[in-house]
C-alpha cells in the first residue's frame, strides 16, 4: 500500500489522459457549444429556465458569473475553453492551461444545466484531476522546451484519479442495484430488462433494430454490465485482471456509443482508461520513446523455410503502415540466438516470436496480441484479444494452425519440400526438431559449398 502511494510512476499515462481530455473538450466545445451559443444561452434559451428552478438549486455548481446568462458571455467562455484545451493538448504552460480549462469549463457548465449530459460532467471532473497532475512532464511542448529527462513523477495525483473513476463505476452500480428507490424493489438492471428498454427508448436509441430484444439477450447483457461495474475497482487495480477489465470496458463503451445517443460520454470515459495502461504500452502505441527520435521497433522471428510463415510475414509487411516491424529468420541461428538467447530453436519452430523494444518477448497467440498494438488495422481487435478466455481460445487456435500449417503449403525449393515433409501433420517433438535442425545444417553447408 505504501508503494502504491509513494513509488514514482511513469509520466506517459498522465500525458495520454491530458491529451485525450483536452481533445474532447476542444472538439465538443467547438462543434456543439460555440456554434449554438445563441440557441443554448440567453433569456429565451432552454438554460435560462434553470435559474429559476428550485429543483437544481441544492446542487448548483459554483460560478463567478451567476448573473451573466447571456449568449455573449457564453461565447467568450466557450472560446476560452477552446483556447485552454488547445494549450493543454499541446502541453504549453500545461499546469496553467489545465487550471484555465477546469475553471472556464466549470463556469460554462454553471450556465448550462439543461443542456449538459453525463459526458460533460465526467469531462469537468477529469479537468480537476488534470490540475492536480504533472501531466505536462511527457509528450508536451513544456517538456521539449525544458529538455527535461523527467519521465517519472510523484504518483498521488494519478492514484486519486484512478480511485475517482473506480468510485464512478462502483457507485453507478450501487445506484443501479437500488432500483426504484430501494433494494426491496429491484429495477430494470436486476430484473434484466435495462438494456432492452434502453435500446427501445426512442429518445435514447440511435437505431430501431434492437427495440424488440428478447430478455435472454437483454438479461445477461444487463447483469454483465452491472457486475462488471460493481467489480471494476477490484478488477482494474489487480494486475492479473486489469487488461480484461479494461477490454470489457472498451467494448461496452464503444457499444454504448454505437447504439445510444450519448454524445462524447463514451470517449470521455475511455480517456480515463489511459491512467491504468502501462507506459511501455502507451509508448508502443505512440511509436516513440519520450525524448528519443528513434522509432520503437518490434522484431518478428519467423520460420524462413515455411511458406505459410513467409506468407504471414508478407501480410504483416502490408499491415505495417507505421514501419514498426523488423524481421529475423529463425534459421539464421547466430542472429536469432543473440536476440532471444532464452528461447530455443525448437520453440521458435513451434511458434512465432515477437520481441518488444523493452526486451520483453511473446510467443504464439501472445505474439500476435502484442503485434496488434503496432498495426493500426488491428487496433479495433485489441479489446477482444484481451477479453477473459481470449488467451485460452487464442492459444489453442494458434497451436492448431501452427501444427497444420504445412498441410496446405506449396514450396518453391528442395529444402522447403524436405522441411514440409518432415513437419507435416506431426507434433513438433524433440525427435522431429532434431531432424529439422540436421536438415537445415545440411542445407546451409550445401549452400556454402556451392
Amino acid at each position, binding site marked *: 500500500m505504501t508503494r502504491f502511494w509513494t513509488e514514482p510512476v511513469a509520466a506517459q499515462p498522465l500525458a495520454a489522459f491530458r491529451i485525450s481530455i483536452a481533445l474532447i473538450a476542444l472538439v465538443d466545445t467547438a462543434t456543439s457549444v460555440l456554434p449554438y451559443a445563441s440557441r443554448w444561452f440567453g433569456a429565451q434559451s432552454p438554460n435560462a*429556465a434553470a435559474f429559476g428552478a428550485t429543483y437544481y438549486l441544492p446542487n448548483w455548481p459554483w460560478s463567478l458569473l451567476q448573473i451573466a446568462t447571456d449568449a455573449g458571455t457564453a461565447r467568450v467562455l466557450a472560446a476560452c475553453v477552446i483556447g485552454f484545451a488547445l494549450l493543454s493538448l499541446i502541453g504549453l504552460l500545461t499546469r496553467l492551461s489545465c487550471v484555465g480549462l477546469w475553471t472556464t469549463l466549470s463556469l460554462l457548465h454553471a450556465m448550462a444545466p439543461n443542456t449538459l449530459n453525463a459526458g460533460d460532467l465526467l469531462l469537468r471532473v477529469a479537468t480537476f484531476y488534470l490540475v492536480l497532475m504533472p501531466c505536462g512532464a511527457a509528450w508536451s511542448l513544456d517538456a521539449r522546451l525544458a529538455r527535461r529527462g523527467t519521465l517519472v513523477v510523484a504518483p498521488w495525483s494519478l492514484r486519486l484519479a484512478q480511485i475517482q473513476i473506480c468510485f464512478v463505476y462502483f457507485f453507478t452500480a450501487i445506484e443501479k442495484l437500488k432500483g426504484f428507490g430501494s433494494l426491496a424493489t429491484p429495477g430494470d438492471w436486476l430484473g434484466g430488462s435495462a438494456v432492452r428498454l434502453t435500446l427501445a427508448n*426512442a429518445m435514447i436509441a440511435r437505431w430501431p433494430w434492437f427495440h424488440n430484444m428478447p430478455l435472454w439477450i437483454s438479461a445477461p447483457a444487463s447483469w454483465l454490465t452491472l457486475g462488471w461495474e460493481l467489480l471494476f475497482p477490484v478488477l482494474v487495480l489487480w494486475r492479473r485482471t486489469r487488461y480484461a477489465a479494461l477490454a470489457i470496458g472498451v467494448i461496452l463503451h464503444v457499444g454504448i456509443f454505437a447504439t445510444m445517443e450519448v454524445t462524447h460520454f463514451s470517449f470521455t470515459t475511455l480517456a480515463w482508461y489511459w491512467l491504468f495502461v502501462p507506459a511501455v504500452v502507451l509508448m508502443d502505441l505512440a511509436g516513440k520513446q519520450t525524448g528519443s527520435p528513434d522509432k520503437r521497433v518490434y522484431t518478428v522471428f519467423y520460420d524462413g523455410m515455411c511458406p505459410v510463415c513467409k506468407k504471414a510475414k508478407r501480410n504483416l509487411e502490408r499491415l505495417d503502415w507505421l514501419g514498426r516491424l523488423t524481421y529475423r529468420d529463425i534459421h539464421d541461428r547466430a542472429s536469432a540466438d543473440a536476440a532471444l538467447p532464452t528461447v530455443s530453436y525448437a520453440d521458435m519452430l513451434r511458434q512465432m516470436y515477437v520481441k518488444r523494444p523493452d526486451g520483453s518477448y511473446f510467443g504464439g497467440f501472445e505474439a500476435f496480441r502484442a503485434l496488434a498494438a503496432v498495426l493500426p488495422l488491428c487496433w479495433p481487435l485489441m479489446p477482444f484479444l484481451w477479453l477473459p478466455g481470449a488467451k485460452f481460445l487464442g492459444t489453442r487456435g494458434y497451436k492448431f494452425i501452427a501444427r497444420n500449417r504445412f498441410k496446405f503449403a506449396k514450396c518453391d525449393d528442395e529444402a522447403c519440400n524436405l522441411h514440409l515433409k518432415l513437419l507435416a501433420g506431426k507434433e513438433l517433438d524433440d525427435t522431429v526438431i532434431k531432424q529439422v535442425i540436421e536438415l537445415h545444417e545440411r542445407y546451409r553447408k550445401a549452400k556454402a559449398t556451392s
Partner: protein
Amino acid sequence: MAEPRTAHGAWRTIQRAAVAVFVCAHLGALLVANIIQVLPQEPPALLDRPARAYMHATALDQRWNMFAPQVSDTTWAPVLLLIFTDGKSQTVPSSTMPPLLSGRTQLLDIHKLPPEQRACGWNFHLMDGRLRKFESYACKPGAQYMALRTAWTRWMLDQWLADHPGQGGSIRVAQFARAEVVYDGDGPLPRIDSLQMLAIEQRMDPHWPLPHTQQLPGVMP
C-alpha cells in the same frame, strides 16, 4: 529511468505532509460524498456538510444515478400545443424528433386513428443530444419539474413566434403535452398511443398567451 525531481530537507518534509493531508482530505470527502448519496437516510450534517462543500468547491459534486437510469418502458416526447383564437390548434414537436409527431397529433383522439396512421418514423439522433436530459425531465409529471416544463414551453413558443412573425396575437393558449410512444408487438415502428397534458405555470406577461382552463378536445387529461 531518471529519479523524479524532489525538493530537499525541511521543504521536502513540508511538501510531503501537505500532499498527505490533501490526499486524505480528498479521499475522505470523495468517500463520504459518494456514500451519503446512496444511503436511504440523510446522514448527520456534521459529516455531510464539509464533504459536500469540498465537492461543490472543486466542481466534483455529481450524483452517479445520472449514469444509472432506471429506463421507463414508455418513451415520452414533449409537444407544444397551441390553441388559436379561432378555435383551431397546432402541435409543435421538439426539434430533436422531427419525424415523430408532426401532422399526427392535431388535438385528435389518436385512438380513433388507424394504427398505420399512428405509426411514426424512428428518430435518428446522430449528433445533437444536448436537449435530451432537459426534455426527459420536462416530461416527468412531478410538480418539481413544472418550472422546466414551463421553460420548455416558453422556449418552443419563442421559436414558433420567431418563425411566424406577426401571428403572436392569434394564439389563445400554449400548453405542454407529452406524447407516449409505444411498440406494437413485433412491428418495426413505434406508434403514438396517447397525448397527455401536464401542468405548467401560465404567465401573464405581454408575450405569453392567456391561460385557458377548458378541457381541450381529444386530449386525455
